[in-house]
């Protein structure tokens, strides 16, 4: 390494004097370094672009092209003089006025060593040996090889240069086997490993107070705040024996059925759960909920993770008679999917295969496999061949809606009622002419009968289709897969189905076993997925356990140890505490892949129990600017679901039932009535369930329609269901304030809260405020707060005395408008809102239902819901 730069300097000095030795060096350099560099960084645009397009008219496939130069008219290299060679000047990126920086993407910029190679190669005579000669050179070792970097054997890349390339060792961390991490017996292993990598001079914050801790962990494990009674009991036992109190609390929470709900919420973010299929029609998936409840149950029953993985990938192959196994395979169909007369069948199928392979990669292995679809993976040892070998594993998969009786552990409530509703609807017309409305309600328009006739017929047709999907919900069917006759799978050049190349056999990623053979699975249609699942859910797969404990860590601490839980490849963030990650993974496996055990271990650490108050804020800012020391616990804002669920719990309205068909909470009325274009029509209006107990369920159970997000949840960063979410956003934006202050739905929660206070502490404002604080903040107000609240209550009350609450009725129908494509003119129709018009709808508590006192207390409750103390967990 030392020798080469010296030589370089001499060559540079000699300039165009082509000494024999420099030519030799330039030749070697080309074979070992320059050609691979050109291939990786330049040829995509300058020689190998589709349709023979050559960017900037510069062809870099051969020396002649470089010497001829591009559209500038100047040669790209001046042989022997890098400092006059545009190629060299462009890659340095510091001569942008004359030569634009190349490669253009910052992402692809060359590092100093690579730039040096180009300089040396040009100065050494820009020798470009024949392919034969290059092959010969490559038989000898690379003289520039520093010994650093690791080759990874795989099934082989499309490009031999890729096959032989080296990886920086630290970019391969996730693919290396789990290490046995030794920790001294007397310390908590997590604390030992965290404190070992703590920056020197950074003090650790003490344990948080018990009130903070029970709130933190109750939200963490159940997504709900503790009740005042729970709080009181915990504080009493904490006084007696804090360690015992804590472990009893953890056990109680892990036994709570709400534990499974909270964990399922995390999991469903990753797998993109929705109750509809997306795209043009966004048809309902009437049985997706059985998969959602399977996830809840799996967590509640502490199903070992290896089994959980296997069931979702290959449940049907493992045991076709196990109801849980069949339901679990819904995972393989969670992505958006649609086939219509406007889609090409082969394309739709290919899209499915692409989706499922990537989803398995992201979910269980934290690898975006789709990066290897068009070319060998740019950063990770995943050849394109492996991508298509993975696809071949899924080639037999076909969709099936199997009959599967409702299981006794499933919540069947509401299914019959739902069926009766849709049976009634399908018999009814549902669509009426605007001419049936009273004249004053008709939009003033140029009514065109022909447009109406044509339009109504399409709209009715579409309505029937949608209703038929809804009607299927009553049938005991499972949204699942089975195996059919597999198509042959070919490597697709550039990812295009129109360019199939060599056929591949089914197999999983080859980088661990080093060859295609040792990573192949059965060629039978049956059993491919089972073998894949066995390989993934194995203690010998270094990714699987790491990936899931990393997620669990994030669920508790708000940040993962490896910062991109869906990407453990070379471009993902490396773990801040690699030993801790490995220790957790090993321990998780040792505990039989038990989530509950790993929670107990994490939650019993001092790191989890620390206060959010730093002992030395300046030292923290200086020594831990990235916030990864775990010397303090980080506060977090409630998630969208936690926020809504907490309001319902505190107001006393929450129906805590577990599972069942999707519920329909109240959502913003404008959005509910907002027409959404679906193919040839407008999607049905969203109506809330008729009874408060039906709609005031936990948010997990709210129907997830891909093209209709609940704006309250969306504004609080609930992710869209089309791509896997590895970590939620938590930015503060002004529309959150609009929702929380102005939404009639949130105001109903506040009024119900007020009514509860009045009922439980009648005729005593002070006691009501005290209870409000206990329920919302799990503590009593101090004297300042009490005074502030009492004063403001008076102000609010006065305000209401001069205000009149106007009653607002729910709409009974909605008028729709569309442009009829055959005439280009608008047509209208009236869509009945059967739930609201049906007479069974029971509204939540509304301002016009209560007196001034309750209204004022409702205002106070609304302010509590909006307050920082309510929405942050410390």
């Amino acid at each position, binding site marked *: 390494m030392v020798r080469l730069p010296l030589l370089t300097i001499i060559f540079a000095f000699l300039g165009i004097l082509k000494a024999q030795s420099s030519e030799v060096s330039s030749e070697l350099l080309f074979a070992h370094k320059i050609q691979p560099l050109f291939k990786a960084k330049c040829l995509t645009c300058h020689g190998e672009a589709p349709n023979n397009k050559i960017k900037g008219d510069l062809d870099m496939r051969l020396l002649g092209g470089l010497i001829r130069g591009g559209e500038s008219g100047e040669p790209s290299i001046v042989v022997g003089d890098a400092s006059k060679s545009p190629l060299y000047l462009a890659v340095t990126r510091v001569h942008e006025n004359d030569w634009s920086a190349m490669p253009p993407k910052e992402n692809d910029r060359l590092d100093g060593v690579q730039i040096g190679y180009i300089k040396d190669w040009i100065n050494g005579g820009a020798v470009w040996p024949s392919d034969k000669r290059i092959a010969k050179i490559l038989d000898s070792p690379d003289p520039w090889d520093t010994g650093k970097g690791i080759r990874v054997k795989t099934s082989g890349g499309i490009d031999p240069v890729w096959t032989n390339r080296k990886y920086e060792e630290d970019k391969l961390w996730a693919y290396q086997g789990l290490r046995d991490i030794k920790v001294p017996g007397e310390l908590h292993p997590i604390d030992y490993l965290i404190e070992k990598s703590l920056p020197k001079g950074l003090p650790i914050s003490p344990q948080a107070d018990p009130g903070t801790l029970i709130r933190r962990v109750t939200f963490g494990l159940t997504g709900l705040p503790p009740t005042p009674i729970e709080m009181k009991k915990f504080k009493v036992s904490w006084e007696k024996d804090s360690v015992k109190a804590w472990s009893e609390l953890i056990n109680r929470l892990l036994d709570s059925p709400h534990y499974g709900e909270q964990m399922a919420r995390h999991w469903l973010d990753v797998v993109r759960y929705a109750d509809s299929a997306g795209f043009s029609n966004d048809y309902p998936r009437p049985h997706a909920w059985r998969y959602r409840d399977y996830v809840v149950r799996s967590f509640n029953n502490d199903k070992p993770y290896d089994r959980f993985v296997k069931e979702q990938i290959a449940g049907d192959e493992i045991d076709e008679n196990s109801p849980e196994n069949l339901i679990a395979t819904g995972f393989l169909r969670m992505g958006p999917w649609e086939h219509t007369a406007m889609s090409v069948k082969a394309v739709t199928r290919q899209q499915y295969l692409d989706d499922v392979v990537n989803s398995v990669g992201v979910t269980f292995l934290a690898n975006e496999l789709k990066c290897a679809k068009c070319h060998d993976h740019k950063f990770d040892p995943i050849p394109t061949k492996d991508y298509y070998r993975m696809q071949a594993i899924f080639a037999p998969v076909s969709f099936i809606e199997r009959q599967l009786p409702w299981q006794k552990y499933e919540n069947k409530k509401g299914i019959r009622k739902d069926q009766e509703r849709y049976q009634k609807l399908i018999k009814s017309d549902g669509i009426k002419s605007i001419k049936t409305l009273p004249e004053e309600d008709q939009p003033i328009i140029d009514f065109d009968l022909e447009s109406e006739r044509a339009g109504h017929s399409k709209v009715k047709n579409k309505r029937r289709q949608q209703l038929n999907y809804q009607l299927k919900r009553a049938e005991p069917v499972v949204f699942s897969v089975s195996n059919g006759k597999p198509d042959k799978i070919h490597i697709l050049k550039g990812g295009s189905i129109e360019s199939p190349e060599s056929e591949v056999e089914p197999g999983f990623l080859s980088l661990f076993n080093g060859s295609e053979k040792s990573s192949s699975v059965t060629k039978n249609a049956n059993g491919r997925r089972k073998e894949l699942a066995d390989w993934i859910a194995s203690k010998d797969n270094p990714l699987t356990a790491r990936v899931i404990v990393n997620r669990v860590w994030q669920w508790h601490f708000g940040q993962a140890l490896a910062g991109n839980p869906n990407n453990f490849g070379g471009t993902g963030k490396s773990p801040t505490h690699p030993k801790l990650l490995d220790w957790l993974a090993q321990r998780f496996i040792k505990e039989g892949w038990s989530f509950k055990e790993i929670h107990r271990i994490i939650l019993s650490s001092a790191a989890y129990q620390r206060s959010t108050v730093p002992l030395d804020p300046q030292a923290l800012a200086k020594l831990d600017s990235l916030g990864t020391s775990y010397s303090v616990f980080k506060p977090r804002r409630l998630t969208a679901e936690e926020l809504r669920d907490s309001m319902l719990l505190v107001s006393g309205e929450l129906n805590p039932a577990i599972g069942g068909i999707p519920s329909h909470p109240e959502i913003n009325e404008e959005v509910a009535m907002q027409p959404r274009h679906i193919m040839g029509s407008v999607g049905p209006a969203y109506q809330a369930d008729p009874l408060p107990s039906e709609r005031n369920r936990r948010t997990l159970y709210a129907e997830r329609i891909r093209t209709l997000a609940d704006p309250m949840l969306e504004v609080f960063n609930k992710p869209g269901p089309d791509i896997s979410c590895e970590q939620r956003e938590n930015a503060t934006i002004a*529309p959150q304030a609009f929702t929380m202050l102005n939404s009639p739905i949130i105001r109903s929660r506040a009024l119900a809260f007020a009514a509860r206070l009045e009922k439980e502490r009648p005729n005593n404002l002070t006691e009501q405020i005290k209870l409000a604080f206990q329920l919302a903040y799990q503590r009593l107000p101090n004297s300042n707060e009490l005074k502030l609240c009492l004063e403001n209550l008076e102000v609010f009350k006065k305000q209401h005395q001069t205000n009149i609450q106007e009653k607002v009725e729910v709409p009974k129908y909605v008028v729709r408008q569309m442009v009829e494509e055959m005439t*280009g003119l608008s047509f209208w129709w009236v869509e009945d809102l059967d739930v609201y018009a049906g007479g069974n709808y029971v509204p939540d508590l509304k301002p016009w239902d209560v007196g001034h006192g309750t209204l004022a207390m409702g205002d106070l409750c609304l302010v*509590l819901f909006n307050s920082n103390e309510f929405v942050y967990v410390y």
Partner: protein
Amino acid sequence: MLRREFLYGVNGGLGALAFHSMLKAEEVDGPLVPKVAHFPKTKAKRCIFLYMAGGPSHIDTFDPKPKLKDLHLKKFQRQSKFLSAMGSGERYYVQSPFDFIKAGESGIEMCDQWQHLSSIADELCVYRGCQAESINHPTANYHMNTGNRFGGDPAIGSWVTYGLGSENQNLPGYVVLPEVAYPQGGAANWSNGYLPPHYQGTTLRAKGSPILDLHPPKGVTREGQRNHLNLLGGLNALHAERHIQHNDLAARMESYELAYRMQMEVPGILDIDKENQSTQEDYGLNDKRTEEFGRRLLLARRLIERGVRFVQVYTAGWDSHDYIKRSHAERIRSVDKPIASLLKDLKERGLLDETLVVWGGEFGRTPDNGKRGGGERLGRDHNKNAMALWMAGGGVNKGSVIGGTDEIGDKAVDVVHPIRDLHVTMLKLMGLDDNKLTYFHGGRFKQLSQTGGEVIDQLIG
């Protein structure tokens, strides 16, 4: 703490900023603060994207195909495993029902239905070489809006706002003016994707509350709300005393004050009755057929005047599988006068040079049609291989027609570019370099073009 203006989007780290701002009191920071463009000399500062959902026919708008007159109603069969059901089977060619004119000094060809737009044709740069990749509405919409056919990625308006910030901190930087009905694919068409939520397209609604829950329900006065905020401020202040180290608290408190002020400001901007009568008439507000779109175009102009960075206006109904004569004539009529007036209005106000105006849909249409319902109903199916769009204003190659399709308009053959190149070109016109406008997400620097694209130089003046 001095701060000139509050931010529409207050980022989570603003509290941390508060400490720094003691040192640099004058500096305002935040996700929407104006940023320096990669190419600071570019003209376009703002963009209005007129989105014709459904797929307008290039053959019947800006790409005349006289050859189809010879082929009119000629039948043929087509089968391929790479075709959809819609595109297979018995087909017949369809000539355009419209005559074409050469408009303006530049002689840009357009169908004679463009009675108003033709009068300002010299401002247009018509592009006939763009190709989509999908013939399904939602996937093609996602592609045209976000660069990714499957949705979930940030829209071009989000990228532009992310790259340039916004000039008005009290309004969202990216505003979407949809029709009452959302286009296929829904709100994911203006999603911020993995970019921070400040860059999400905010819909200002044609009817009802312009921003969801902008106003308190009836029975809560502004004074009443002030009282609520006062109590909220009091409780939050007491809370903050116990959590002085928690940076997010101040930002969240400020977001409430901003929201309170926005309630006052937004309705004023929307109040287009303040425009004089002749302007209203120009935008077609006095004609039922143009009023709906015209109203939103007028609003678009008011928004960009107030520093909103990117405004997207949707109008649907271009999906003319049948009876294209009537349906396209009607669609063109509904947008023609408002668009022409918008361009003229921008020009008169000296804003056209700084505003990139883009007109287009998700794909073009076929020169032929399938038999449906046993009859020939003279329409066109979806065509991903050809489409027409145009740009005007901010630095475009005005008065020109770029690219071309084959003699029947089946496929682009000249200056052919995929949508990503169109995106890269739009960014370039806005002063942004797609390769530099990246966001680190999921371990990778991501960009609008997905993996890089090429500027279509011919579109730039």
